[in-house]
């Protein structure tokens, strides 16, 4: 197997010693089929045990290894070194989040926003057990399947210019999660979710830059979900003004 030595330039931040982050470079002998995470693991195992970062599955499923690679948010386990341009590889913690230590960021805000949209099936009327399960057709499943693929990697928050400028913005993944349940034929909770979704800090803070969809490693397309909700919420708004329902204001 061919090897190539790649220079990794990694942003370090050790809260006990550092006042601000700084770049440390490592020379890593990389195999042809390595992803960035492999190179970082090499650093940790052979060059510098003090480096902190998150990862678990190494197969683009757990969503924990996201970081900025050459300035763009990506999963380090899904980014092949051979696909990157020659020269040093710049690695930083996810943008738009505070740095806890090295490549580990504080994700509390993201987690809290995911919960705010009530991401679970809500029923106004519970069907008695003896009436059987809630059947769903393949067409009904297709309406939201794509949005279930989100792995909460937060790459979209890192790319979203509006989240960068407006920290209160609920943001792409959480809004998309709301849409996922709104679109589910078994769910009746859309009106409840609209309190968060259709507020100023919800969909209306999105400027449809589409950056979230560009970087999403699972092709969830949050920008699309948010736009669809803008249209639906606008229809609601006019219906309400015309006294034709459309939920409470």
């Amino acid at each position, binding site marked *: 197997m061919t090897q190539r030595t790649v220079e990794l330039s990694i942003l370090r931040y050790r809260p006990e010693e550092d006042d601000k*982050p700084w770049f440390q470079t490592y020379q890593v002998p990389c195999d042809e089929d390595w992803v960035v995470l492999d190179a970082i693991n090499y650093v940790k195992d052979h060059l510098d045990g003090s480096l902190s970062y998150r990862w678990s599955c190494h197969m683009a499923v757990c969503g924990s290894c996201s970081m900025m690679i050459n300035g763009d948010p990506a999963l380090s386990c899904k980014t092949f070194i051979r696909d990157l341009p020659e020269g040093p590889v710049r690695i930083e913690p996810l943008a738009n989040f*505070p740095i806890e230590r090295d490549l580990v960021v504080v994700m509390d805000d993201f987690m809290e926003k995911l919960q705010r949209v009530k991401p679970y099936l809500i029923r106004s009327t519970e069907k008695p057990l003896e009436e059987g399960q809630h059947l769903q057709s393949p067409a009904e499943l*297709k309406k939201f399947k794509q949005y279930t693929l989100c792995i909460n990697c937060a790459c979209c928050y890192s*790319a979203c*210019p509006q989240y960068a400028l407006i920290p209160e913005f609920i943001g792409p993944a959480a809004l998309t999660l709301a849409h996922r349940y709104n679109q589910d034929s078994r769910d009746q909770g859309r009106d409840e979710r609209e309190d968060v979704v259709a507020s100023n800090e919800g969909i209306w803070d999105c*400027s*449809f*830059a*589409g950056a979230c969809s560009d970087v999403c490693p699972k092709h969830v397309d949050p920008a699309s979900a948010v736009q669809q909700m803008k249209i639906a919420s606008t229809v609601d708004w006019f219906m309400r003004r015309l006294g034709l329902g459309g939920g409470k204001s």
Partner: protein
Amino acid sequence: MSRKPYVREISHTTWYLARRRDLLHMAQEVTSLFIGIYTIMLLWGVKALSEGPGAYQVFLDALGSPLVIAFNWITFVIMLYHSISWFSVTPKAMPVQIGEEFLPGGIIAAGHYIAWVVVSAVIYYLAGGFNG
């Protein structure tokens, strides 16, 4: 162990320069200024029209000034950019599901591009562009 999370500040005035994607987005937002100025020009034309032939001639003469022509050429290019980028994202806002499958976004966008050409040709025809 005490925590000391580090917050990276971003510049609120130059953030979009760092990445091509953000720069393109900002360019799209700025097209709105040109749309606004041109619309005000249209409004002025309507005003002139309502005031009679003399006023309308003044408006037409103004359209011929080099400054206005230069602005209009620039705006024309910017409008093309607006149209192309607007139609390219329309499928995202309005996906179409037929039976089980969603129509590929490319088809919806293509439909809009075709409609765009037809609408433009009709307006051009009605304005006498083809026999002028």
